[in-house]
């Protein structure tokens, strides 16, 4: 028996090195907590994002004329009027709200009073993410590009031709990895963000579940990240969840499968509610996790609590 104890200790070391933790849906979903509508009667909701307090912001890319807000009491209001055709929204660490105005082919930013400043025009922006240090990355779905606008407003192409139809975009919690979903394929791609803000080492890191009738096209769309480093992506099959090593952890059912699922974001108290844009309705669902906030200081993934 003498030799067994040290062997066991060594073996535990080996295990922790080699094997990754399993991350099933049961670590995220709560029994009895389903989807509930938080904003209804819109045409095509999109662009979900949150602020420090957990308020939710979204757009109505087809029918709406404003950026809408759902506050913590559940009240829906127009946050910024006269802002139609927006497909992506994110708060920056500078306290400004960045937006892809798909209809007008512009990327703009709103200050606290709703005053708009144009960052770039004559582009085809779909969705965006803004890092803590002020780099804005946005997808250009029709041209297979990912572009960056740095904190001084200079735009550059940081990926071209890698992702077939780049659409949703998010970061790892430490903001060292950029993840981009492919609307025309079945992968979510991971890139390393270099010190100068450029992208390197693309990898088809996550393989999304696809419909039986269209096995090569997942319709990957909006993305989000949680504090444990899990990635979420809306797809034709539902809201898919991946662990930080790229393994699919499960598919969360779409609230209304008759309508498309195009955007996902954490918001609400403690940023612990998953929200999805699903046609004319935004739904939310309470979870056991919390969203990663990219306007906040980058942090390493939080360890999972012991079962």
């Amino acid at each position, binding site marked *: 028996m003498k030799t067994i104890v040290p062997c066991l200790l060594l073996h535990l070391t080996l295990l922790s090195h080699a094997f990754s933790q399993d991350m099933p849906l049961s670590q995220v979903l709560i029994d009895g907590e389903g989807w509930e509508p938080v904003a209804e009667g819109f045409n095509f909701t999109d662009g979900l994002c949150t602020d420090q307090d957990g308020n939710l912001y979204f757009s109505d890319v087809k029918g709406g004329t404003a950026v809408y807000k759902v506050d913590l009491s559940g009240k829906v209001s127009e946050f910024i009027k006269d802002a139609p055709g927006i497909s992506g929204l994110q708060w920056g660490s500078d306290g400004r709200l960045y937006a892809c105005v798909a209809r007008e082919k512009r990327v703009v930013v709103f200050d606290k009073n709703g005053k708009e400043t144009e960052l770039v025009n004559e582009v085809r922006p779909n969705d965006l993410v803004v890092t803590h240090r002020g780099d804005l990355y946005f997808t250009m779905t029709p041209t297979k590009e990912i572009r960056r606008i740095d904190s001084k407003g200079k735009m550059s192409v940081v990926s071209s031709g890698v992702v077939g139809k780049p659409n949703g975009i998010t970061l790892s919690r430490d903001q060292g990895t950029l993840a981009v979903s492919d609307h025309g394929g079945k992968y979510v791609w991971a890139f*390393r963000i270099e010190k100068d803000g450029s992208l390197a080492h693309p990898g088809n890191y996550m393989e999304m579940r696809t419909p039986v009738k269209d096995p090569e096209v997942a319709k990957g769309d909006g993305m989000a990240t949680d504090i444990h480093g899990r990635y979420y992506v809306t797809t034709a099959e539902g809201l898919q969840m991946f662990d930080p090593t790229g*393994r699919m952890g499960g598919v969360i059912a779409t609230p209304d499968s008759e309508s498309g699922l195009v955007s996902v974001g954490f918001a609400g108290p403690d940023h612990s509610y998953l929200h999805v844009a699903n046609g004319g309705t935004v739904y939310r669902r309470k979870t056991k996790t919390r969203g990663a906030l990219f306007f906040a200081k980058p942090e390493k993934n939080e360890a999972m609590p012991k079962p």
Partner: protein
Amino acid sequence: MKLRVLLISFLLVGALGAEDKDYAPGPDAMPKEGVPKGKVSQHKWLSDIFPGTERDYWVYVPSQYDGSKPACVMVFQDGAGFVKEKGSFRAPTVLDNLIHAGDIPVTIGIFINPGVVPPADEGQQPRKNRSFEYDTLSDQYARFLLEEILPEVGKSYKLTDNPVCRAICGNSSGGICAFTVAWERPDQFRKVVSHIGSFTNIRGGHVYPALIRKSDPKPLKVFLQDGENDLDNLHGNWPLANQQMALALKYSGYDYKFVMGTGKHSGRHGGSIFPDTLRWIWSDWQKLNP
């Protein structure tokens, strides 16, 4: 003698309630007097096939290797765990003992860690590429070995290019990776050793039993080990998946061996029987021409 050791370990495990920790390395995993030790060297590799990844790997060269003729090759996934002196496997010591005894051929061991894309900046975490490299059903890992690692090690040592003289071994995802390499490239690798192999749906690997049953049999020799108390999780059930693999290999007439123990998702059982596993996987070695 071999039978007696097996019998004793079986009784011991039974008597103690068959716990995972009761599996331990045996005498063939201990240094023996008069057995010459091979040399282990550590290296680093930057891959193009897995762009941006870095990894460590180790090369074991037995003292019997003299460069006069090509050596057999055995590749290990999660190399650090196998090459460790005091781990569950202690592969260099086992290889020393078995090569010296003439039970297996003169074999160069290549122990490779999975890749990581290191962070660009301080305070950031690496992108771990292990699951992508090991769990994906494709020829990418085989190409990584054939186009990057084997040519690199081959600069220093004469390695066989006879697929029957090339073995590949791994635990868990490293186990399914071993099978995938041989399944994709039977012209290059024909010996597979899988412990607690993840033939489950991490990235689609649960389909192998079905593929094996409806494919023209490939000329592979496959060793599988698993334990009754192995994982049952979101990806699948490991004991059932390994039984499905074993029965599919049997159905299609493969040269295979399946050892089912009582262990958990650890290398302890696989490590405790590793010397006999090597004797079985290399049992044809006297007839081979590396």
